[in-house]
Each structure stands twice: as C-alpha cells, then as structure tokens.
C-alpha cells in the first residue's frame, strides 16, 4: 500500500520542512532567491548612484593618456602613455617583484628549514629566532622598516657603501654593473640554449648508461658545468661582445649600471625574509613528516646519507611540501600589493591607485585589479588541485 502512496505524493505545505527532498529544493530556491535579491539590490543602487552623481561608465578611459610617471618600468612608458599601458606596467612590476621574491624566498626558506633540523644547536636556535621574529611581525611594518633603513640610514650616493667594487649601496638604492650587449651577443644566447639542450641530452644519456651498465655520472655537476662553460667559450670566441656598464657617481646620483630602487629593495627584502620564514616551517614539517624508519631502512641498505636524502627523504617530503609551498607563493604575490605603502608601482598602485584617483573610475579600476589577481590565483589553484589528485591516485 505504502508503495502506491509513495508513487503519487500529494504535496502538502509542511513537506517543505518535513520531507527531505522537498526541503532541499526549498532551501536551495530560497538561497538563490536571496542571492539574486541581494545582487539586484546592489546593482540597482549602483546604477542609481552613478546616475545621480552623473558618472559615466565603461573601460574607454584605458585609452586616455595617463599623465603620470612611473619610476621603474620594464617596458617603454611615459606620462603620455595610456592608462591601459600603465596597467600593463603595473602587472609587469607585480610579476617582477613576485618572481624575484619567490626565487629568493625559496632559497632562503629551504636553507633555513634544513638548518633548523641540523644537529647544530646554535644554528638551529638562531634559525628558530629568525623564524619567530619575522613571522610574528606584520609584513607591512617590515617593509616600512627596511625602507626607512635604506632611505634614512644609508649614506648619500656621494659616500655610498661599496661592499664589492662596482656595487654601490646608498639611500638611492643598490647600483650594480649592468650588462651591455654589443653586436655578436646573440652567439652567447645561442650557446646558452645549446648548453641547456646539451645538459638535458646528457641527463638522458647518463640515465640510459646507468640503466644498462650501472655506471653513475655526477649528472648535476656536469650539466651545470656545461651550462656555464659553453656560453663562456662563446663569449670569448665572439670577441667578448658583452661588456659591463660600470656605474659611476655623477653629481648627486649614479649614472650607468643597473639600479634597484629603494622601494624595490625594501619590498624584495621584506617579502623574501617574511615568506622565507613560513617556507622554512613548511620544509621542516615536510622533512619531519618522513619517519625516521625511512632513513634507517635506507642506511641499513647501505645507501649513504646524501643519497638517502635525495632518493628517499626528499621525494617523500616534497609531496608534503609542495601544496603549502605553492600557497605561500600565492601569498607572496598577493602580499606584493603592499608595494603601495612604499610607492613601488605595481597593479594596485597604478590602475588601482593613481589611475583610479585621476579618472574617478573606481568600479572599473577595482574590477580590473580584482580580475587580474583572481585569474592568477584561480589558475594556480586549479593546477594544484590537479596535481594533488594525481599524487593521491599514484600513491594511494
């Protein structure tokens, strides 16, 4: 009997709460309706506001001249360039600081993480202090502190510190000898490309030799020397086409060379030091997550400590390390938006800052900034999800 009743359910109002399926549908419809009402309210308000204020909308302003200067640009830009170009300059600057920061933070973070685990009490204590001091102080404060140190505590260019000859540290930033590529430089780049290809080929060859004869080549050191030596040879063969452009003091500032401005230095330093302390904790936890039994088993098989690290510990630790490491890279990239505090011109400072204030196009500018960050973050997390699923499948 009940089966027949079940086939023809007569809907009663109370079913919305008592019947599981009806309730599910009801709740979802309610949620959707609420959401749409909320969005409609906001959109409606926005349209009203824009109309009363007489603000026109649209992204056309991106083609208007920006009429402001940017001190550090990777592409050609001046105050007659458009807001659109300023945005691109901002994106590139964000990319530059993120890339530099990620590289140095990774190097420093891995070093500190490994040193914290070393049997050396003094070193591991020092690393502990470093980690605790840096990660418990706000990043913004650290950026400002480094900036203040560079700008207020370093000497003027006239008395610049010269830690190595040709490298000057002053309150105008760090000046390095910059490369100047003469004609024939292309040979070096070709040599570099050939060297990289050669190193890859050598790796393959070494692997095959090992599989067939068992002989083990020091692959890493040989590849590295190929990559270093070949371009060097090409450099001399082509008649030394690359020269260094040495900076020299002229008047109140340096001429020539490659200048890293104080705001870039402060940001880079702070991001590196701050993120590295988080990375070091990730690395430490990753290595510690590999049980001591693994090391012992490897030792008992006669595998030496450094090979044990490479063949047994690191491959396991890296699987634990990689996901949080990538999320630290994302954090670093997002944190680079604090650039605005010291006037480094990243996305937020260009389109979300000066352009916004000059044109008053808050909606459009902010939407561009948000969209750029979102695209970046979401694509990285998609790749990470894919990777996590794959590892989970393989290992089980």
């Amino acid at each position, binding site marked *: 009997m009940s089966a027949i009743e079940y086939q023809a359910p007569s809907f009663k109002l109370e079913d919305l709460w008592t019947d599981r399926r009806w309730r599910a549908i009801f709740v979802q419809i309610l949620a959707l309706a609420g959401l749409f009402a909320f969005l409609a309210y906001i959109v409606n308000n926005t349209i009203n*506001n824009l109309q009363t204020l007489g603000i026109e909308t649209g992204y056309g302003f991106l083609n208007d001249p920006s009429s402001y200067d940017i001190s550090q640009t990777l592409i050609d830009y001046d105050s007659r360039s458009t807001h659109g170009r300023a945005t691109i300059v901002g994106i590139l600057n964000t990319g530059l600081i993120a890339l530099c920061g990620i590289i140095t933070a990774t190097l420093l973070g891995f070093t500190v993480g490994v040193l914290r685990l070393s049997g050396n009490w003094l070193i591991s204590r020092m690393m502990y202090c470093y980690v605790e001091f840096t990660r418990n102080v706000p990043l913004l404060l650290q950026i400002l502190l480094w900036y203040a140190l560079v700008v207020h505590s370093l000497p003027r260019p006239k008395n610049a510190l010269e830690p190595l000859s040709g490298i000057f540290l002053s309150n105008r930033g760090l000046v390095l000898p910059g490369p100047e590529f003469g004609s024939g430089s292309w040979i070096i780049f070709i040599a570099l490309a050939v060297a990289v290809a050669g190193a890859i080929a050598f790796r393959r060859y070494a692997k095959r030799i090992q599989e067939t004869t068992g002989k083990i080549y020091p692959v890493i050191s040989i590849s590295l020397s190929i990559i270093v030596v070949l371009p060097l040879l090409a450099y001399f063969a082509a008649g030394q086409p690359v020269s260094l452009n040495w900076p020299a003091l002229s008047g109140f500032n340096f001429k020539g060379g490659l200048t890293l401005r104080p705001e870039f230095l402060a940001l880079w330093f702070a991001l590196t030091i701050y993120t590295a302390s988080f990375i070091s904790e990730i690395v430490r936890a990753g290595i510690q997550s590999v049980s001591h039994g693994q090391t012992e088993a490897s030792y008992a098989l006669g595998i030496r400590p450094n090979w044990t690290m490479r063949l047994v510990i690191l491959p396991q630790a890296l699987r634990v390390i990689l996901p949080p490491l990538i999320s630290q890279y994302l954090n670093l990239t997002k944190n680079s938006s604090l650039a605005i505090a010291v006037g480094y011109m990243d996305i937020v400072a260009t389109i979300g800052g000066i352009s916004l204030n000059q044109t008053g196009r808050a909606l459009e500018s902010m939407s561009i900034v948000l969209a750029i960050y979102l695209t970046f973050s979401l694509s990285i997390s998609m790749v990470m999800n894919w990777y996590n699923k794959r590892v989970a499948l393989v290992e089980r």
Partner: protein
Amino acid sequence: MTDATQTHAPGTHPDLPPPLGNRGAIKWMRENLFSSPTNTVLTLLGIYLIYLAIPPFLDWFILNAVFDAGSRAECWERASGACWSVVIVRFDQLVYGFYPVELRWRVDLSAVLLAVALVPILFDKAPYRRGWFVFSLIYPVIAFFLLWGGLGLEPVESAKFGGIMLTVLIGVTGIVASLPLGIVLALGRRSELLVLKVISICFIEFIRGVPLITLLFVASTLLNYFLPPGTYFDLLLRVLIMVTLFSAAYIAEVVRGGLQAIPRGQFEAAMAMGLSYWKMMGLVVLPQALKISIPGIVNTFIGLYKDTTLVVIIGLLDPLGLSQSILADSKWQGLSTELYIFIAIFFFISCFSMSRYSIYLENKLHTGHKR
C-alpha cells in the same frame, strides 16, 4: 679493552656512568656544536654573526639610547643610539589614538574586561566557567557601549579611535565575528545542496584569490556605490566587515580541512542514531573537526591580527598611521626606526603569545587523544 673479559656474573652488572667525553658539557658540545667539520664551521660562523650583530644592536637599542629628550635634535646631540623619547612622549597617542583624554578610562576598562572575558575561553580549568562564559558572551555589547558611548555615556565617534586600541578592536572583532561565519561557510562548502555549495565556493575562492588591500580599497571606494544614495556608513565599520569576511574565508578552509579529517564512520554513526543534520554536526562532527583545526584557526587569527596594519593604507590611524603623523612633526622627524621597532615589539609579543597558546592547546589535545 681493559674489561673485555666478563667481569661480572650474568645479570649482576652494575649501571656505570658513561665514559668521560661522553658526559656533561663536553659531550654536549661535541654532539651539538662540533660533531663534524661542517658543524664546526657552522658554529664558528654563527658565533661570528652573533658577534657582528648583537653588540652594535645592544649599543643602539639600550646602551646608547636616549629616553628623556624633548626632541630629535636633543637626542642626537646626547647620544648615538635610539631615541626612545619619541615613543615615551607620544606613548598615550600610540595607545589610544585621538580618543578624548578624559574618556580614556573607558578604553582601559574595556581592555580589562576583555582579559576577564577571555579567561574562560582560553583555559578550560577556570572556576565557575559556565557563569563566566555568559559574561564573555555579553562582553561585546558592553565593549560597544564603553567605546562608542551611549546609554548615558558620552558618545565618541570612531574617527577618534586609533593606535593599539584600534588594532586590538579590529583584531578581536574580526576574530570573534569570522569564526562563526567561517564555520557556516565550511559547512556550506561541504553541503549536499548544490546551490549552497556553489555560493560558498565562489565566495571563499573570491576572497582568497585577492589581496586584503584590494578588499579594503573596495570598502573605502566602492561601498558607497552599492548602498542606497545618501547612506552614511562609518569607515571603521566597513573595515570591520571586510576584515571579517576576509578572515572568514580562510577560517572556512581550515575548518573544511578539519571536517575532511573526520572519518565517514562518525557521520554514519551519528545518522544511525537518528540525529538530524544540525544535531549531527553540532554534537558529533564539529566538536571533533574544530579541535583538529585549532592550530590552523589560531594561525589565521595571527594573520588577521597582523593584517590589521593594512588599514593605515586607507587612512585609519592604527599605530602605523599614528607614527606617520608623529613623523610629520618636525620635532620628531626621521625617527621612523624607533617607532616601527616599538610597534614591531608590540606585535611580536601579541602574535608570539598567540602561537605559544596554540602549541599549548595542540599538546593538550594530543595527550587527550592518546588516552
């Protein structure tokens, strides 16, 4: 091999102390500082670094510092070290911002009451915990009236709030408000109802995908557009909302991790007992999931607390904002390092104690699990 031959009958060998060089300070140093050539080099390098860094820093920090000068010029005349006078002279401002001097007792009182309200939350051995807990629950209301005024207290507008008080206010409000919201979002993300799930995912991923500073910009520049014309909306309130939303998204991910760690069996057992969804979650699943997530949650709170400094960029007067205005005073120009270090010490103490507390909790929970 002096005693290579068996000197004692089986089972009667006494416990001997380890041979010399395997004992005490020498052994400790050999094992922990000089166990290999690499380690010896590292140790010497470490000592050298400390020698390079610590004495000059101490010199600057304490030995050559000035505490009672009236201006930067006077400081620099008297000694080469830090000029802490700026912090001492402007200390009240760094703590209270521009909160009216005669009303500052209200801030002090709410700080004391905050400490009282925190005790039953932080320590489960507090006596009369239940009754005390009720006080913790109504504390936000008390604090609201104490700080903003009303109910017969003279009102103070939030533009006057500033300094450490502002930091703590934003931090604590964000923490208190973002936890429940984060839990709801986590449940939403794990929900079987597609619409709720999608909404939660979109919200969480959006917030986590952008820097806080852009959200604060949205709050300061765009929120006016989203509200009916003519609505006035306090900047501090906007910031509080944004900080809460921001931290809730991160909490949600932490809690989701905790929920995922709960074995299926727990859900099934709860459902088999006939518990409804909310009872299952509230009585069985969430208590366990939250326990696992505590370290992550505390880390998120520490992050939020540090992030309160970002409000200076949209013009609120947190300690960083105040130091910029202090630095604009010609008497104290150029003393940014001193001010920043003072603020850094404040943050270090608060964040470090939070992380210690989280480690304490973690250890307690671990022993609890072992049984």
